[in-house]
């Protein structure tokens, strides 16, 4: 499935990096955080233009037909800069569900996601915040040939800006997925977030008209794919963020002088940076393995072991480097103005979004057969 060479992926990295230099610097990020939509529409269009949104969309639906290996390049860069975008909700979660459903009716939506015209989100989580693939309290019922959704979803990544919602709901034939494109009987609320660079909403449905995606009862299998894709994507993002924290710490340790010497010459600081480097190397290896594994066998194992390993190792690396980066910077690292806290916020948020270390431990053991 992987159809690119290393130099081609480096070209892709350069073009994404170039865009982020232009539309994703500290000022742009601050503007995006304060904006209504939560992201820069100019950056989003530019990402669409270089093809960053269509990498994993199948060729039949107007995409490039590549895989996680290619998408990892984009996600690392987005993680490095923490440029706020609806990439996770739209391109990773919603698009993966659309593709995994195998439903040809999803193709027009995928085309519009690939071109940047549609923003989308996946609504799975309910009141307890847990990732689940069944036992939804949100219900879908047929009403004279039209499906109608009733219930409430929490923690919907990019849910407020989404033109298209992919919603998991219970039906008489089991857990199923539905598409919601209208705003009729949909109540969305942007939530206060730990991570200031990623928007999360709650969405409530009250007899909302919806279209069935795939077949009734399909939701668990599709959502398993989405879970793995999300873990693999977060891992790539986390590697980019962890490396950014390491780079910032090393640069500061060379620049900052105390007691008449660069603080990076003190072993206490140098070893902290070496520890960060080791975490980054390990995380990068895990994210790479998870991406290759996902593309090698998109329909399960051993991708699932590598994805859970990557989610554990990369979450830890991002959290560790974000924490240590603040410490290397000292007082300045604890200010609102300095970006260090954004990485800390993103790290904790990504670590916990799918249930956190305890849940992922059980996920990994299940996949290892323990």
């Amino acid at each position, binding site marked *: 499935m992987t159809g690119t060479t290393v130099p081609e992926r480096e070209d892709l990295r350069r073009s994404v990096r170039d865009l982020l230099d232009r539309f994703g610097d500290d000022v742009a990020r601050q503007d995006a955080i304060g904006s209504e939509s939560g992201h820069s529409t100019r950056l989003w269009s530019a990402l669409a233009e270089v093809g960053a949104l269509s990498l994993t969309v199948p060729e039949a639906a107007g995409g490039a037909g590549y895989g996680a290996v290619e998408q990892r390049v984009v996600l690392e860069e987005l993680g490095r800069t923490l440029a706020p975008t609806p990439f996770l909700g739209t391109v990773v979660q919603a698009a993966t569900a659309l593709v995994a459903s195998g439903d040809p009716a999803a193709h027009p939506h995928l085309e519009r996601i690939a071109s940047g015209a549609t923003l989308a989100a996946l609504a799975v989580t309910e009141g307890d915040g847990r990732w689940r693939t069944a036992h939804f309290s949100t219900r879908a019922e047929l009403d004279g040939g039209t499906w109608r959704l009733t219930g409430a979803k929490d923690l919907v990544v990019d849910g407020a800006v989404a033109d298209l919602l992919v919603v998991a709901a219970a039906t008489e034939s089991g857990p199923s997925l539905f598409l919601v494109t209208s705003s009729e009987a949909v109540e969305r609320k942007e939530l206060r977030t730990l991570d200031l660079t990623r928007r999360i909403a709650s969405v409530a449905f009250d007899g909302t008209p919806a279209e069935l995606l795939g077949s009734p009862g399909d939701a668990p299998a599709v959502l398993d794919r989405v879970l793995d894709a999300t873990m693999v994507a977060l891992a790539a993002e986390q590697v980019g963020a962890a490396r950014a924290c*390491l780079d910032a710490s*090393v640069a500061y*340790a*060379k620049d900052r002088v105390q007691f008449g*010497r*660069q603080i*990076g*010459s*003190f*072993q206490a*600081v*140098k*070893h902290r*940076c*070496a*520890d960060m*480097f*080791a975490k980054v*190397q*390990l*995380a990068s*290896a*895990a994210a*790479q*393995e998870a991406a290759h594994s996902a593309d090698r066998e998109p329909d399960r194992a051993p991708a699932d*072991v*590598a994805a*859970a*390993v*990557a989610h*554990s*190792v990369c979450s830890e690396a991002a959290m560790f480097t974000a924490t240590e980066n603040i410490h290397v910077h000292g007082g300045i690292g604890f200010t609102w103005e300095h970006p260090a806290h954004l990485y800390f916020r993103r790290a904790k948020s990504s670590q916990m979004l799918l249930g956190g*270390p*305890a849940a*992922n*431990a*059980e996920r*990994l*053991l299940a996949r*290892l*057969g*323990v």
Partner: protein
Amino acid sequence: MSHRLAHTEPTDLEAFAQSARDFLDASADRLEDETEVEWGAGEDRISYFGDETPEDATRLVDAARAWQKTRYAAGFGWITGPEKFGGRGLSAIHDLIYDSIEAEYDVPDTGVLSLIGLGMIGPTIVAHGSDKAKAEYLPGMYAGDLIACQLFSEPNAGSDLANVSTRAVRDGNGWRVNGQKVWTSVAQHAQVGLALCRTNPDVPKHRGITALLIDMNASGVEVRPLRQMSGGAEFNEVFLTDVWVYDSYRLGEVDGGWSVALTTLMNERASVGSEGAGPAARAISTPFLAALMGENGCLDDSHARRRLAELQADQLATSYLNRQALDHLISGGQPGPEASVSKLLYSQNITRAAHFAAEVVGPRIVADTGAWGAFSWNELLLSTPALRILGGTEDIMKNILGERVLGLPKEPGGDAATPYRELRTSRSGS
């Protein structure tokens, strides 16, 4: 080393890797990943360092020699060696690739020959030895007949290796050597040792060292086993008392021994990709630890499960890192800092696993009740402190990562310009 690497074509490496696999397929069995553990079957031993009887030690050395002869005959015994001394004339990358592939097979452990002698001393003799020294030692070493050791560390020269105090003074057409070496692996089996000796104490420490090849059977060489905290005696102390060495066994220039030592140390590679095959690999694998938990009734304990999962995540990620490093070399890339990182991770992973296992075993870790797979964890547990010390302490490794990889500044000051004679020494020397 680098001038040879630059001309290596990836296709050559792939063909080489394939020829190595062909040879190994024909000569040995592949190590299979164990998915089910039969608890209580086999020897109840979980060790990192050997603790053999003298008879067992001799048997293991003989097996190592036999395997070295087999792979030497097949062209894989001295991959980097000059062809005129019987080597293959290939690059260090070829060597790394072979080692990583061999780690996938069940072959005799050749560490006694290869870790120090073939891997480090041999290349040093090639680079710095006289024709006489090369002809005398190299063919025998690579044919598996001669074992070499490294007489470097001393009680007052550990991380600060250039601080050696073993004296060598001119005496006719040779040198007379007096001093003490320590932590010398395989000295009890060795026929030759490479010693760093102080020949000029009036210049800074790096500039007054000379490297000499010492006949381990010479008069005045005394090897005493050094028992380590885990109980066995893997290492030795070597006492050198008026040992006489011909000048033709000198490596490099007089007072130029530091660059000889650097050649040796540059060849000390944490073998990329083979960490997973360490002696404790089975014990810290998922199936073995899961079986241990089952035996001890904590397979459903959420705290124990979480620790197991975190251990396995880090171990698996470390194995991904090692395998990617190997793939990188096979596709023609240069060695990166992965080996240093891998060494840090390896020691952390084993240490965590040993403490985890001890906790799962519970009180039976404190005394040998005869239960299988319980008290036997002690040997691994008691070996873990060494993993952070040997082959460069964790602290020195982190300095190297910080300074050479991340470009952080060195500590200011230091003793590089002070004559050796005037340096401060530790009050007690051990």
